[in-house]
């Protein structure tokens, strides 16, 4: 069956308004749900032929506010186009006999299609002549179709956690639905959902607006709601908030902490947002800014303010769901709540510091890290060993500020804040609180910042620990987590990564690469393994597991190098194949490969290397292990003698550049091999009958490959169009 060509066109189109009125939807979900609702309706409307597909995007709009999701559309057909339906039946030869009379086959086909036999027609197809039944299907009125589509669309919106409110037989949604508006061309679409009849009346602001507002359609939707204290469009709400913030900060000579996340949140928490300024007692400014800001932002959703000198000011901005606060009642309330919150924080700050940060260490024995991996006290012991080891490595490799004792101390203190009241109350301040206490209690700056920063970096674009000791503790923490969790099989799968090991691995890679730290990753992994053997839980980490961790880290490195630095996978693989244990060095080689891969000689040379690798694979048995001496007297073709000579000369030259770390120059030198290689393959046959000559030639090539693959294995480089894109790579995982 195939719908064929549209015939009679009905010209009339109309505007459409759809609003799902709801009890307060969680702020973080509204924008996504609106976008999804738009996609769902677009899909259904085009499937039902009520809109023309190419124009769909321009005609449908969706947006939301705390108590509503709305869709506005124009150009919706009021009636589906009539269409001709054609159903192919039996071949003509079966349907009609020799005399041209219809057979039983034709009659039963016609009957099935509901048309008289006389209306059957014949079409010619590549397979021969067939009987077809043509029918004109009269388009349905759009309201009828919408009445079917809309309830389904409501059900199709996906939510992180939906609920029942009408009992187990009732619908599920994010919060109870309380009204529905569905108007096409000014007329209600007749359907019911959740016991509600869709209609033409919306609801204004909960306290300030009318609760039963008649609508004509999309045109009066926005203005009528505005009159009733609802700004239905998020852009209008955030604009109002931003303008009022500017006004209040401007006339008070203050700066606001820019915070796009918070702005977005308050945009979706209020239907009619206004900004008010409140004060707090300047005495609270003796508490660290981090704590004050966390209380204001995280708990109360206030914007913090700064003086023009960049000092935190004793004021805040709150966004309220009212046009104004003429009596200052709301302001007084917010100030009171903030005062109580700050008083709590002050209480924790003082109570916690009745003892030294280090005195909390024994209590970590009661905090489990992972049931098979012991407590945080055990983890701290392992972190101390690793931090010392890291600092020693760096010191021995010429980084004079690497501080072994300081790294040990910082690791010892790093997790102590987990058992303080402050972190219990504000878990998002872990690390930071410990750092603040360490500083307040006279630990050296370097150590205090190391504790403060040791959870960093928190993501691909987030900052690193600010000092080397912080890098040591952060690496120690993350390497321990990785090796320990892999050792007990707590390995991330799909979306499940409870110990945030992917982030830990990315952190390790990011610190090493961005601080350009000299470090053997495999040695670091084996040091972490040793720490797990020496300290609780005293487990053996097998070679296989260590290799798994290494591969996991390298995979994150590949991810970071493609995402952040724009390298191609084959460039990374080529350089990594020549060694990736020293990541910083490996990345320099990746850069060199990228820089040179498209030069005149290099591409063809890389292709030749691939050929060499193939030859070597085919003649794997020819070579004795370790026997790689070319016998000069057996080189009797001029082309092979030239290649041998060129390789010697260029090899020495390249080695010198490589030793000096000038990988790009070394590669440029190597690419000068191309003429000799080309000529060799032109003139010389490798697989000759004479075993000795053949072996000698294979040896020559093997030497060549070995000697010139220490920067990168060129045979891994694909041609441009064969390069695997990161997307494909990811999709394939």
């Amino acid at each position, binding site marked *: 069956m195939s719908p064929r060509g549209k015939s009679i066109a009905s010209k009339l189109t109309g505007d459409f308004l759809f609003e799902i009125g709801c*009890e*307060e939807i969680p702020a973080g979900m509204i924008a996504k749900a609106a976008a999804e609702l738009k996609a769902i309706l677009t899909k259904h409307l085009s499937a039902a032929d009520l809109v023309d597909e190419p124009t769909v995007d321009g005609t449908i709009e969706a947006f939301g506010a705390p108590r509503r999701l709305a869709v506005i559309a124009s150009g919706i057909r009021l009636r589906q186009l009539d269409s001709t339906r054609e159903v192919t039946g039996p071949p003509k030869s079966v349907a009609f006999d020799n005399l041209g009379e219809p057979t039983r086959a034709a009659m039963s086909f016609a009957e099935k299609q509901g048309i008289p036999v006389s209306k059957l027609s014949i079409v010619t197809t590549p397979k021969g002549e067939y009987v077809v039944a043509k029918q004109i299907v009269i388009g349905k009125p759009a309201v009828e179709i919408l009445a079917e589509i809309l309830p389904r669309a409501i059900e199709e919106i996906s939510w992180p956690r939906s609920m029942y*409110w009408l009992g*187990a037989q009732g619908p599920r949604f994010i919060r109870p639905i309380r009204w529905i508006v569905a108007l096409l061309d000014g007329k209600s679409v007749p359907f019911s959902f959740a016991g509600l009849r869709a209609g033409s009346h919306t609801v204004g602001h909960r*306290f300030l607006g009318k609760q039963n507002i008649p609508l004509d359609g999309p045109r009066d939707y926005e203005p009528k709601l505005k009159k009733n204290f609802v700004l239905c469009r998020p852009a209008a709400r955030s604009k109002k908030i931003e303008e009022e913030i500017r006004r209040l900060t401007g006339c008070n000579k203050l700066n606001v902490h820019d915070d796009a996340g918070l702005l977005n949140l308050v945009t979706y928490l*209020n239907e009619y947002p206004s900004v008010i300024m409140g004060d707090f007692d300047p005495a609270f400014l003796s508490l660290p800014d981090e704590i004050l800001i966390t209380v204001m932002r995280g708990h109360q959703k206030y914007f913090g303010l700064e003086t023009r000198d960049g000092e935190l000011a004793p004021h805040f901005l709150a966004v309220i769901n009212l046009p104004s606060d003429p009596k200052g009642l709301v302001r007084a309330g917010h100030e*009171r709540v903030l005062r*109580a919150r700050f008083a709590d924080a002050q209480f924790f700050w003082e109570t916690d510091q009745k003892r030294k940060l280090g005195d909390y260490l024994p209590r970590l024995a009661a905090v*489990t890290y992972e049931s098979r991996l012991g407590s945080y006290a055990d983890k701290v012991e392992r972190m101390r060993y690793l931090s010392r080891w890291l600092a020693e490595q760096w010191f021995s490799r010429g980084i004079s500020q690497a501080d072994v004792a300081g790294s040990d101390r910082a690791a010892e203190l790093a997790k102590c804040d987990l058992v303080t009241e402050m972190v219990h109350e504000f878990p998002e301040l872990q690390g930071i609180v410990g750092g603040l206490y360490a500083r307040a209690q006279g630990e050296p700056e370097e150590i205090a910042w190391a504790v403060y920063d040791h959870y960093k970096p928190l993501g691909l674009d987030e900052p690193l620990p600010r000092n080397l000791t912080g890098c040591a503790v952060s690496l120690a923490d993350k390497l321990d987590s990785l090796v320990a969790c892999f050792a007990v099989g707590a390995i991330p799968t799909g979306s499940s990564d409870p110990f945030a090991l992917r982030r830990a691995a990315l952190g390790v890679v990011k610190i090493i690469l961005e601080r350009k730290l000299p470090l053997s990753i495999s040695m670091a992994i084996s040091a972490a393994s040793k720490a797990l053997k020496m300290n609780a839980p005293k487990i053996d980490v097998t070679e296989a597991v260590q290799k798994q961790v290494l591969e996991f880290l390298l995979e994150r490195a590949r991810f970071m190098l493609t995402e952040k630095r724009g390298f191609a996978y084959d460039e990374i693989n080529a350089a990594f194949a020549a060694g990736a244990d020293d990541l910083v060095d490996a990345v320099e080689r990746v850069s060199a490969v990228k820089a040179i891969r498209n030069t005149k000689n290099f591409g063809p040379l890389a292709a030749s290397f691939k050929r060499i690798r193939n030859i070597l694979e085919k003649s794997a048995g020819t070579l004795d292990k370790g026997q790689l001496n070319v016998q000069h007297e057996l080189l009797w073709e001029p082309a092979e003698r030239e290649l041998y000579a060129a390789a010697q000369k260029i090899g020495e030259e390249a080695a010198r550049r490589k030793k000096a770390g000038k990988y790009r120059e070394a590669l440029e030198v190597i690419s000068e091999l191309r003429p000799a290689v080309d000529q060799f393959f032109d003139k010389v046959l490798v697989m000759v009958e004479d075993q000795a000559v053949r072996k000698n030639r294979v040896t020559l090539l093997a030497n060549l490959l070995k000697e010139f693959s220490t920067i990168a294995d060129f045979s891994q480089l694909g041609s441009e169009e064969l390069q695997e894109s990161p997307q494909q790579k990811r999709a394939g995982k």
Partner: protein
Amino acid sequence: MKTQVLRSKDKKFPARARGVSKGLTFQELLLKLEEYWTRRDCILQQPYDIEVGAGTMHPETFLRVLGREPYRVVYAQPSRRPADGRYGENPNRLYKHTQLQVILKPAPDNAQSLYLESLATIGINLKEHDVRFEEDNWEAPTLGAWGIGWQVLLDGLEITQFTYFQQSGGQNLDPISVELTYGLDRIAAYLQGVDNVFDVRWSDTTSYRQVRLAEEQQLSAYSFDFADAVSTRKQFELNEAEAKRILDAWPKSEAKMLERFPLLAAYELTLKCSHLFNLLDARGAISVTERAAMIGRVRKLAVRVAELWLRQRSGSHLAPELVGSPR
């Protein structure tokens, strides 16, 4: 304490001068809300006479929301949170605070409006204050109970938990009940414009401090400093064993006088366990792993009680009155 120093020199914030009226006393607030809800067909119940951590643990909520019978109830419930005790020194934190609990079963369509009207009744002008519903899905892991809803904020202060109950004792609920839990102490402090809950006027002549301070001081001291971990743990185990003994005795075949089977006693023992667990937790006597395990033990009891309760109410030892389809 430093916070009090701050408050006394805090002349910029005379809340009363800003137009908040003198406000209801604590007992007037309680009476007004109880009266409001009884006029909306709630029966007025009494607080449960066993230590509980929240009004939800009262059988009038935990058990009444199970099954199909409609029910509406209001009651005050002093709720003990040993870990929140501060010896009466913190202006906002209490060992024992007072919740006002309302259950509306089934959830009426106008539950939010009914709730907001109750705020108007206690003197909050909704057009002059910022009242809002912010996502907060409530959960009581020891009871296997959870719901979907909000915390209600009044000018940034959390005053009520508003929940559409989805499960209690691990049982899917049908119909759905609305649970409203008002934090009476902080609402009273707000209405009276005081920063310290102990300064709240309980009646015209008596302060919250006079009524409650000794309790805060002594029960905080007991939870943090005196409680004997070994004997508390033993009590937990005794209560748990007794609850299990009852639950294990549930008849295997058709039994007479099923209505006399003491599930309510098993539930009370479960509540005892829950409180003793909280006490051990406050005392710092539970490790993190053990913590999860103990919560699991209490929940197991609560779930068994809820399951059998449904069977008992349906009059059969076997056929549970299944509530809805499995989700």
